């Protein structure tokens, strides 16, 4: 295998692993917080339904966390196996957050084990809830540390490269790079948002499929409210991300927005297609890009003409950007409408078609996560470490990457199908009505 092939297959395998892992990772970061909120609401309102909600979510969460853990292990090792030259360089400067991530993960794993096996062990529910706090913190901090590494790839700093030698290394400066605040906030908040919508989808689906139990209605309302809060936060952080890009990675912003010429009063191009270098069927919002980039409708925004041709990312990232933003805005609007309508007691929220809309929120949010990561990674091309190392110089020289790609694709297929089958079976065998009934009997002392 020539090295070009090794580079190509390394890219495909990394993309495949990350695209698969991010589904479970996103759920893994967000769900503990949702469980915590549900259990807390249950304790506060003294409402058994919310406690049960937390308990059933926790059961499902174990399955997704297992896949998240093993695919996380896979990508952790693959970084060194597929990109040895990059890791050799990166290890010198950005190893600290990678190392801290394993601690966060360790912490989470220990307390998750404890939390799962101590239901009803404590007289006081609050004590049990306390055990979940380290799980949620560990999960979120795993995301924080890993995203810091990704931020470093976009805006490397904290070292000097002199004649190929790394000097003046400052690990903390490398961690707190300019890309870090917006990226970390964006990743963590969208994980919360997506998890809320995934859980909302499930509740809406159960309501559609004939179960009219109060339990699902409470679940739906709670998760949609949380979805609304976190999607508003996402929108605000998204705006800051645009400003970060304009300042530090202007070529990424220009490529994502199809902004070809540097100009003032730059319009924002939405949708459209690119035909022979010409933008067609697009919606142009006057001054839009200038506002997005600099909060000033007359500001100058750098266009692609300012950059060397071989340092411009592929232009198809515009579609990814549109997909991500459209879903984000759509979900914000939909959840706002739902929460408002429930408050006003409008009846259309209980209709079939509207519930189907709610079912779509989870999958759509996940699609936006995928689009966002593809945008982030493809938008950094041709660099693996911006302005320092190109992707093709980072890859392995090993000749067996294509075979490994096939093996891992098979693995992800098994894990994906397996997790879905197991989750479905788990909740089908033990429907919530049954469990509520069982618990009632247990408390009445009929069954010990």
């Amino acid at each position, binding site marked *: 295998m020539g090295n070009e092939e090794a580079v190509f297959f390394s890219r495909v395998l990394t993309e495949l692993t990350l695209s698969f892992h991010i589904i479970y990772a996103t759920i893994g970061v967000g769900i503990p917080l949702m469980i915590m909120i549900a259990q807390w609401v249950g304790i506060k309102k003294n409402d058994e339904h919310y406690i049960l909600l937390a308990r059933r979510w926790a059961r499902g969460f174990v399955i997704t966390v297992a896949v998240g853990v093993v695919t*996380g292990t896979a990508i952790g090792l693959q970084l060194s196996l*597929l990109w040895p030259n990059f890791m050799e360089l990166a290890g010198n400067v950005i190893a600290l957050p*990678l190392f801290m991530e*394993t601690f966060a993960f*360790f912490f989470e794993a*220990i307390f998750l084990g404890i939390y799962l096996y101590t239901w009803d062990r404590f007289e006081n529910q609050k004590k049990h809830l306390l055990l979940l706090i380290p799980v949620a913190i560990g999960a979120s901090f795993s995301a924080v540390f890993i995203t810091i590494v990704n931020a470093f790839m976009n805006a490397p700093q904290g070292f000097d490269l002199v004649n190929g030698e790394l000097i003046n290394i400052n690990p903390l400066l490398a961690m707190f790079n300019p890309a870090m605040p917006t990226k970390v906030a964006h990743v963590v908040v969208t994980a919360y948002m997506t998890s809320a919508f995934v859980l909302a989808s499930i509740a809406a689906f159960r309501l559609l499929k004939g179960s009219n139990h109060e339990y699902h209605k409470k679940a739906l309302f709670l998760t949609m409210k949380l979805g609304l809060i976190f999607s508003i936060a996402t929108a605000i952080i998204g705006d800051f991300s645009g400003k970060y890009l304009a300042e530090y990675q202007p070529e990424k912003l220009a490529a994502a927005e199809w902004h070809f010429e540097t100009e003032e009063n730059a319009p924002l191009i939405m949708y459209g297609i690119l035909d022979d270098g010409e933008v067609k069927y697009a919606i142009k919002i006057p001054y839009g890009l200038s506002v997005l980039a600099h909060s000033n409708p007359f500001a100058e925004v750098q266009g692609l003409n300012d950059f060397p041709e071989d340092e411009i990312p592929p232009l198809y990232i515009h579609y990814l950007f549109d997909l991500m933003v459209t879903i984000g805005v759509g979900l914000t609007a939909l959840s706002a409408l739902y929460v408002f309508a429930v408050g006003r007691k409008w009846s259309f929220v209980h209709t079939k078609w509207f519930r189907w809309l709610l079912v779509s929120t989870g999958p759509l949010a996940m699609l936006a996560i995928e689009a966002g990561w593809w945008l982030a990674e493809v938008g950094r091309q041709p660099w693996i470490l911006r302005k320092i190392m190109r992707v093709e110089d980072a890859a392995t020289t090993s000749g067996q990457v294509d075979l490994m790609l096939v093996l891992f694709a098979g693995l992800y297929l098994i894990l994906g199908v397996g997790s879905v089958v197991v*989750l479905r079976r*788990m909740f089908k065998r033990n429907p919530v009505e049954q469990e509520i009934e069982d618990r009632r009997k247990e408390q009445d002392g009929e069954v010990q």
Partner: protein
Amino acid sequence: MTLEIIGITVLWIFLFGYLIVASIDFGAGFFNAYNTLTRRDHILTNIIERYLSPVWEVTNVFLVFFFVGIIGFFPKTAFYYGTTLLVPASIAIILLAIRGSYYAFAMYGSYGHKGYTFMYGIAGLFIPASLSIVLTISEGGFISMVNDHPVLDYWKLFTSPLTWSIVVLSITALLYISAVFLTWYANKAGDTSATELLRKYSLLWALPTIITAGGIIFELRGHNPEHYARILDLWWVFGLSFLLFVGTVWLIWKRRSYGLAFGLLTGQFALAFFGYGFSHAPYLLYPYLTIYDSFTNEAMAISLIVAFVAGLGLLLPSLYLLLRLFLFNKDYVRGNKDFHA
């Protein structure tokens, strides 16, 4: 003590932790599968599930910790080992992934049948086998530099007796470690028939373990004389390790203090593991890579050590809590109470 030594010691401790907890886990899976096949599964299943359920995820972290840490402390290892280990490490990941996730699927989703139990048991033997190849490669002679890139000679690797003895040692040792631990655990749980069965396994695997371990030292004489000489310099460490081994076997034989027996076993493996590591130093990969020429910069090393100490301050109390609630809690171990979500 130099920063290099601190770094490698920290990593070696975690790898030792993985060796012990993963051995228990893998061995348990194998014994369970074997007993299912011979229709005696009722004896062990309960004991094994009670032990594994709350801790399986923690096991994995020890391994992750090691390979993330080694890239942090010794970034050059990414270049040498990353390039050459693509195939064996990928196979290990895939097996780990299937094994780990299906454990969760079976335990929490009650999604299991015999074929799966069998696969689960066998995978537990293949994982250490594929991981232990790294130790063989580190002895040198299997990697050559072609156009400035390390290339692994698979033919030479798979025809070397050293490779196979290390593979056999990884399997016998894990079965031995697992059997001794589970004997203690079963005894704590007050399960007599399981204790007896596991005691038998402990005695059965004791001799093969010590024979293969001795055989490897012998083979190193031909393969890597430099390492062999350094092992001989440390003869007293390995001698002490052997005495602890005798102690463990004697206690198990006499059906006495299984807890102490497991303690001695841990000591035996710790001495052997650190003796091996110490005699291997300063090389990470003969003859290309030492802990000195692959070491990271001072700023990173110090920040990693600080992070490590802080992290340990967080981890040790949590681990203690985990062990207290499950491993050392009588009601839990005996299965009197079950509080699973």
